[in-house]
């Protein structure tokens, strides 16, 4: 592993991070279907967080940005000990959280709080706002005595702008508007005096005219209470405004991280670029980019080899991790543009592309070879089809990842460039780290796994 530019701070040094995450993995077992369970099939695992390193300095706002399925929410919950990591470490002020029992974590929760996406669902419908906030105090035996507790609740409500507090303490969540409910949720979090606030899409379910108000409130609380935030969002615009540092996540991994301004002014990872290009901007002189990543986030239970973004990446090239199943994607794309007759013939030959998924894929040393058998017809036909598609789109990254295609024992043998998984590494002359073969030559960086 290459060393980081700065040596890690000693535990009690003044620059000690508030939260430190090392090699964090969170896996979820997918519930197997009934048949699979009966025959004893193993449930597949989803690597929701797949090896993440993070540091949070006190008072800083870190944005975790990604699409759904990127693992950003799971990572945020793992920081609070709400989900159990499979491996790795999360320390809060030097104290290890991974492996702590629920009862040992509970007192720490006072310092590690969360604001949720859906303010309505995160408030108990049968508790008044006053009781909901008071209950947080009661759990931690703070401000003992009814009088003191009620005063603390009123202070918290007024702190988040729900003033006069008397108007709100006896209201049920159902009687408040979305913005008011989110303010109440924030009040419930800050009344405990937390140091870290994980805000999971806190404004995405609110009406747009309220978003600015809630974001403004969070910003104000950071200044006044010295809070440290992890701001989880898919909305780059609010992240740019609110965050000091950004980590872009894709399929459980951080693909790019650095100071907000640098990420936005000079995005490096093609995924970051794509996300930025895709943000709808209320400036009619701009238009949607022509070149968008194709497809959608793949199934996290079966992520692509190499760089997880490679099948969608507009700048992919030889070492990105091409594998036989990418051929299916290429052909499905091809078939949206051909006529019914041609499609029928090609679909028959390739069993609707299923032969690519079923290809025999072996790696011996540095040789990565796949054997694809045509569903009907001979291998020569299949090779011709593959070559035709390659000639039609020679710039397609996949074809750079294939060194040779030949007929071999009734099948087509395809030789791939060795697959390398990019690592998150610093970029020269910048504070940004990026995991992409475009910036780090796969030959000189050892690929994990």
């Amino acid at each position: 592993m290459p060393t980081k530019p700065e040596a890690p701070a000693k535990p009690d040094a003044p620059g000690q991070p508030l939260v430190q995450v090392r090699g964090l993995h969170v896996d979820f077992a997918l519930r197997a279907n009934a048949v699979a369970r009966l025959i004893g099939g193993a449930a597949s695992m989803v690597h929701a967080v797949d090896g993440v390193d993070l540091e949070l300095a006190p008072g800083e706002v870190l944005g975790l940005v990604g699409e759904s399925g990127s693992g950003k929410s799971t990572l945020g919950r793992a920081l609070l000990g709400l989900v159990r990591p499979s491996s790795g470490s999360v320390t809060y002020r030097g104290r290890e959280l991974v492996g702590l029992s629920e009862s040992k974590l509970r007192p720490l929760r006072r310092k590690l709080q969360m604001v949720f996406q859906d303010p309505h669902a995160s408030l108990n419908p049968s508790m008044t706002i006053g009781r909901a906030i008071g209950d947080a105090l009661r759990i931690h035996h703070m401000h003992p005595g009814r009088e003191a507790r009620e005063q603390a609740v009123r202070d918290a409500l007024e702190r988040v702008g729900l003033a006069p507090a008397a108007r709100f303490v006896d209201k049920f969540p159902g009687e408040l508007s979305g913005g008011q409910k989110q303010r109440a949720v924030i009040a419930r979090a800050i009344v405990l005096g937390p140091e870290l606030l994980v805000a999971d899409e806190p404004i995405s379910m609110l009406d747009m005219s309220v978003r600015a108000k809630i974001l403004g409130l969070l910003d104000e609380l950071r200044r006044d209470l010295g809070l440290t935030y992890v701001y989880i969002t898919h909305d780059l615009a609010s992240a740019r405004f609110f965050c000091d540092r950004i980590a872009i996540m894709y399929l459980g991994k951080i693909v790019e991280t650095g100071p907000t301004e640098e990420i936005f002014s000079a995005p490096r990872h093609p995924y970051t670029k794509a996300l930025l290009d895709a943000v709808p901007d209320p400036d009619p002189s701009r238009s949607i980019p022509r070149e968008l990543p194709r497809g959608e986030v793949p199934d996290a239970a079966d992520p692509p080899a190499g760089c997880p973004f490679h099948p969608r990446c507009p700048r992919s090239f030889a070492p990105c991790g091409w594998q036989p199943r990418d051929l299916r994607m290429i052909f499905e794309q091809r078939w949206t543009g051909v006529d019914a007759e041609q499609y029928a013939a090609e679909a028959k030959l390739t069993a609707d592309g299923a032969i690519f998924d079923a290809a025999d894929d072996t790696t011996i040393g540095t040789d990565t070879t796949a054997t694809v058998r045509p569903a009907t017809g001979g291998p020569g036909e299949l090779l011709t089809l593959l070559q035709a598609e390659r000639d039609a789109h020679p710039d397609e990254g996949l074809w750079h990842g294939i060194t040779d295609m030949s007929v071999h024992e009734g099948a087509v043998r395809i030789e791939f460039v060795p697959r390398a998984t990019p690592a998150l590494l610093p970029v020269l002359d910048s504070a940004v780290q990026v995991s992409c073969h475009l910036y780090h030559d796969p030959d000189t960086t050892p690929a994990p796994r």
Partner: protein
Amino acid sequence: MTEIRSRSDVVLDVQDMRVWYSSPGDPVRAVDGVTFALRPGEVLGLVGESGCGKSTLGRGLMGLVPRGAAIDGTIHFDGQDLLALPRKERERLRGGGMGLIFQEPMTRLDPLMRVSEHFREELKAHEPKLSKQEARNRGLDALRSLGIPPTRYGNYPHEFSGGMRQRIMIALALALRPKFIVADEPTTALDVLVEAQILNILKGIRELYAPAILLITHNLGIVAEACDRVAVMYAGRIVEQGTVRDVFADPKHPYTQELLRSTISLATRELHSIPGAPPDLVSPPSGCRFHPRCPHAMQICVDALPPTVRDGSQQAECWLLASGLDENARRPLQRQEVSVADEA
């Protein structure tokens, strides 16, 4: 009464449409006097905060109103007044001549039916003369134009991702070659990249099918990127409309101005928000409905409904744009302090 407007350059012409729906108390004036038109192939963005009547308007155009609701005004579609048509006729047009795309595609697709069956059912209902093969080709063409490979034609809805399902919904709407589509927040539930893909596709299909689209959204960014014209709705009325370029460059109505200022975009350096919340549409404010939240409210704004003032492509409903108001009418309104207690 129902003079047929034979302007051939207009697909949909809506005049003074109202949709009031019933509530335990007085009726909710969700749409209260709305006038606009759509040309063939034109995309009109309808924006506004939640609870301003956007969705009710979209559904009302389709003749879909909640039980107990009343609708009036005129909706000329393709030369016929929809509201004067018998119910059966109107229902035939819905889906056939007019399409509807919703926010949540999964709730509109039958989980037990393959995609192919959805197309077959739909085409059978609206174009019974189509042969099986023709129907299949029509379905495949529609899917193809939305970038869904024909290999997926026999799949069930749950085998698709959210973005793919939305594409299927759009394909289903397009297979009937409608002249007009209402798309109600079609990309709100989707990720940014998928949203951009679908907006691109919507642009693409305009060249192929050229339907007029009413795109209902709360996202001004989407309007800027995907629409030709924009209509800004507030409290049941369209307060401003015009070409996207003109309205975004020089918004005339204070609500449009505030809405644009309060949107968080990549260029946002300072947060701004509109005080207060949209009014209760059971008893909306007198005069201009925006006056309690308007930074430029005057005495006249409380007293009378503002005039519609045209300027180039733009038209806005605001007293600030009216000329010849006397001193008294122009007297600035004492704004009450709006506390967060009243916010949305």
